[in-house]
């Protein structure tokens, strides 16, 4: 615990201005699904491009000058150097403006921020990824990382749900993922002729075989999904310390100063966005 008495004000140093973003260029952009775009980005400054590293589950503060700023997860694996990717759902002011960007345009970013998924601690274990909607974005970073570091992990299982079939993201990558395990998808509602499953995401648990004691769970999705998925994982015998969940909150600064993202005693932007269920046990407002 930092003690007030340990920090005499006169000796504070002010090393780095966190609030100044840096310019990044859009190398390519594609529409993944209606209202959802994928961007491959690269820092304009070569030194920054070279030095940039992050871990899966971390996010960037992405902005356009004159429009605004918002937290967006990195969706590419840390094993790719030199570029990074984001996946943006059009939700309002900034995300709407991001959708108007084209190849060669620039935007502004700062970060990476927050604690990602502790993949290093999961070495040797099976991984189950459970995602809903745009929540697949940070999970995709971790999935691709696990795929790339093939030997480090056991079997991979991806359970993914979206509102409609056309809103399922990264569909052309599922085959690659399947070479390392299983990918099961489900949608809330589907047009006639849809061959896949419809229903709630928990039904996907019936389609897979898990070894709970040797599996870590990585979850990201809308809050409504959490209680059902967590209930099911508990039933299966997953330990709280092996379940990792990425939370969304209103965020402005990303560095634990603006107070918007607080849940009781932790900052979602600093101790989170990825937290283990063990870390948030007893905090009833965390999982809403």
């Amino acid at each position: 615990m930092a003690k007030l008495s340990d920090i005499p004000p006169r000796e504070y140093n002010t090393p780095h201005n966190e609030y100044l973003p840096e310019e990044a260029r859009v190398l390519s952009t594609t529409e993944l699904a209606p209202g959802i775009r994928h961007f491959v980005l690269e820092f304009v400054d070569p030194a920054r491009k070279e030095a940039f590293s992050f871990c899966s589950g971390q996010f960037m503060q992405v902005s356009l000058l004159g429009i605004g700023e918002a937290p967006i997860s990195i969706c590419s694996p840390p094993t790719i150097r030199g570029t990074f990717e984001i996946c943006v759902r059009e939700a309002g002011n900034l995300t709407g403006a991001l959708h108007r960007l084209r190849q060669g345009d620039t935007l502004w970013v700062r970060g990476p921020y927050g604690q990602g998924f502790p993949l290093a601690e999961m070495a040797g274990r099976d991984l189950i990824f459970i995602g809903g909607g745009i929540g697949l974005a940070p999970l995709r970073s971790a999935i691709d990382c696990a795929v790339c570091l093939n030997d480090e992990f056991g079997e991979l299982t991806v359970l993914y749900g979206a509102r409609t079939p056309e809103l399922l993201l990264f569909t052309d990558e599922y085959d690659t993922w399947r070479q390392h395990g299983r990918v099961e998808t489900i949608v809330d509602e589907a047009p006639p002729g849809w061959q896949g499953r419809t229903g709630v995401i928990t039904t996907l648990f019936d389609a897979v075989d898990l070894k709970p004691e040797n599996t870590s769970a990585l979850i990201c999705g809308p809050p409504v999904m959490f209680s059902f998925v967590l209930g099911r994982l508990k039933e299966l015998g997953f330990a709280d310390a092996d379940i990792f969940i990425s939370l969304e909150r209103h965020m402005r600064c990303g560095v634990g100063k603006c107070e918007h993202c607080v849940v009781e005693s932790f900052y979602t932007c600093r101790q989170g966005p990825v937290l283990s269920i063990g870390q948030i046990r007893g905090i009833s407002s965390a999982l809403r």
Partner: protein
Amino acid sequence: MKQGPGPEPEGRIDISKNPGGKLRVGIFPLTSDAGCQLEFLNLQDDLLALAKAVDILHFPMARAFNVDGPFDVVFVDGVPARRDELEILREVRRNTKVLASLGSCSSFGGVPAAQRFHDLGDLKKYVYRGMEDLDTLEILPISNYVRVDLQLRGCPASKWEIMETLTALIAGRLPQLKTYPQCIECKIKENRCLLIEGQPCLGPITRAGCGVVCPSVGVPCDGCRGPTEEPNLTSAVEILLRGTTYPDLIRKFQKFCSLSPEYQEMFDRWRETQ
């Protein structure tokens, strides 16, 4: 009866820019005292720069030749009180991407809506003397007839909000209008608080954006910018009654924004006590 929009606009606002060209702006007056349009002229120094930066295509108060669209943004001042004004309003909605209500008349019925607290026949007799056959509509906010994307409230509308709307649309940003209460800005200006001194100031439950003009000169806020997102009116009325009488307080609420949905329950309670 539908009574004006809540704080969040329904549906997506189309803020896409007119490709290659300047922002096409229209200012349409309906029945009002024209005070809100006048705020455009009151932009003074900014007005010249503004006239260069955007195309003001329709502004009868300031232009001899007016075009009927298409527009990127239209500000509607006032409320439809005649049937032909209703047609103008619907036509405007068809011809613009963004429609903003300008001032508390178009947002909430404003002062003209006081009509609703009196018998229309009496009003025609005493106010519009000799015009008993006048064909006036019931005064309702424009959102009652068309979709409204942005509410620029106030009597008159605030210059700051007009400029934020225009600069935001030029930049491709959703205008960041304030939703918090007057007290925030009032405290930041370090004004003395009239309410804790016992005066009936509506600041805590009134939306900011005017620069707290009234409390800054020692006059309690009259609530011309309408309610905050979630006004605690039961508690507010209790506190406000320490400095005024119930009928006076209700009249204060009825003055500018009487049709705001948030106020109706309070008015109902008041009627029950009568």
